[in-house]
């Protein structure tokens, strides 16, 4: 019986926004005690590989300890931007949920 994998959604919630071909995802610890885990899990390398199929640019990660939040900024991730995108979610409104699918076991 293999142990089920834990995902980021267990310890955090997220909100995505768009600007041009960039998207930001605010990731907030559900409980402040998980903030340290967030910082450990959310490295630019991991996030870039999680979004390898859609993110053609860089990934930046910023800390907001006052809100127990991490702001993830993805560049060149919206198929050229909402106005020209062919995707079902041109503004990337679901990218927050997509990031919450990140497995977190390896970082613990």
């Amino acid at each position, binding site marked *: 019986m293999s142990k*089920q*994998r*834990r*995902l980021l959604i267990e310890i955090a*919630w*997220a*909100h995505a*926004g*768009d*600007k*041009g*071909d*960039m998207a*930001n995802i*605010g990731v*907030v610890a559900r409980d402040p005690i998980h903030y340290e885990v967030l910082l450990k899990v959310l490295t630019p390398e991991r996030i870039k590989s*999680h*979004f390898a*199929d*859609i993110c053609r*640019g860089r990934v*930046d990660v*910023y*800390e*907001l*300890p*006052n*809100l127990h*939040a991490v*702001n993830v*900024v993805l*560049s*060149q991730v919206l198929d050229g*931007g*909402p*106005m*020209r995108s*062919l*995707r*079902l*979610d*041109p*503004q990337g*409104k*679901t990218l*927050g*949920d*997509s990031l919450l*699918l*990140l*497995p977190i076991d390896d970082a613990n």
Partner: protein
Amino acid sequence: MVRVAAGAGSWGDDISEARELLQRSEVDYLVLDYLAEVTLSIMQGQREKDPAKGYATDFLLVLRDIAPFLKADGVRIVTNAGGLNPEECARQVTSLLSALGISPEVRVAVIDGDDLMPQLDTLAERNAFSSLDDQRPFSTVAKSILSANAYLGAEPIRRALALGARIVVTGRCADVSLTVGPLLHEFGWSDWDCIAGGVVAGHLLECGPQSTGGNSHMWSDIPGLDHVGYPIAEVASDGSFTLTKAEGSGGRVNGETVTEQLLHEIFDPAAVLTPDATVDWRTIRLEECGPDRVRVSGVKGRPPPPTLKVSMTYGDGYRVILQWPYAWPHAVAKAQAALDRISRTVQRLGIAVQDSRRDIFGTGAIHGPRLDHAQRAGSADPPEVFARYAARIGTLAQARTLSAQQAPMLYGPQGLAGHIAGGRGQVSKINSHWATTVDATHVSPRIRILPRAEPCQSNADC
């Protein structure tokens, strides 16, 4: 204390929200933000078809709806409804006010100058424009540019209010400046921390009910989600403020709903750039101070950057979307076959497709490969679903009222994919079929050979 409230957070918002808010709460300034980044592109499309368009026509519907509040000593209104055509928008506003019999003391100001098209070539040379997305040089799009607008700041709005305007119509300005303008007018701030507080207030108002529980990760716990109250900022002279919402409305204002909007569309939190101030988001202090009340304080700011953001639109070809729903049995195989068939048809017809994608909705078309993690973690949720509401309605007016409810679903549960500002549901006229029988002898077929035109004598006759 100055009470600034949001009456619209994006184009397509329910037009009755401003009236609902004014009926429920005391408000000094009502700010209506209609411009997302994509909105100017949509407006450009409308202006191409009709040069008198290119602004948020919804604003006129709102004004008509709140007519009783439009008085010389009533609420003051600041909006970027002008979009790409602020002058025409303001002209329509003044004729509407006259038609409604509103006092001429309700003065209307229009702010433009954001339109850079007249001097674009010179500006491009002097500024070495490159794309904020991928640093591509301006030369790659220069020939296709259709519009170019700078994000103006709060100062022109302050000046318009100082000139006695009750309604200020702007073109492209920073969303937060709609709020900062009135605050500069009221408090005469020159301190960067005060202005920074105003910027944060503006950020919490600019998307309407996204700060009061709309489009929230907590959607299943938010009361009254079918009609979320729009936010109100009660701003003190030091730039600190309390965020709340229209009295007796749905939604919720707490640390989490406010945090959610604070994180909306920001990049480096140490330096959130606006034309009014550069703001350090890490200094924001939140404190729940009563039911549906969050106090925001401690915000630190410094001077804005010397540059303004510019939003341009350019002609970039066409997009075609074809959709075919299939059901059990072999639904996925059928969808796959349909996509193979259309790909071959595209080839046969010699259509020069620059880029295309094939998606089968319901099989992981949105989250893509990341969905494997959910399945491995034991989630039984389907990958994605489509909620469809169809109705037959007797009058066109009511059909349009319903169709306008597509966009406000943004403030329903979070994770609505494919939301584009101002989008409406499809309305089509029904001409229904009605069949019966008639006695065959009551119907007489008639046969006539029609006269033909004489053949041409010469080319000149034809």
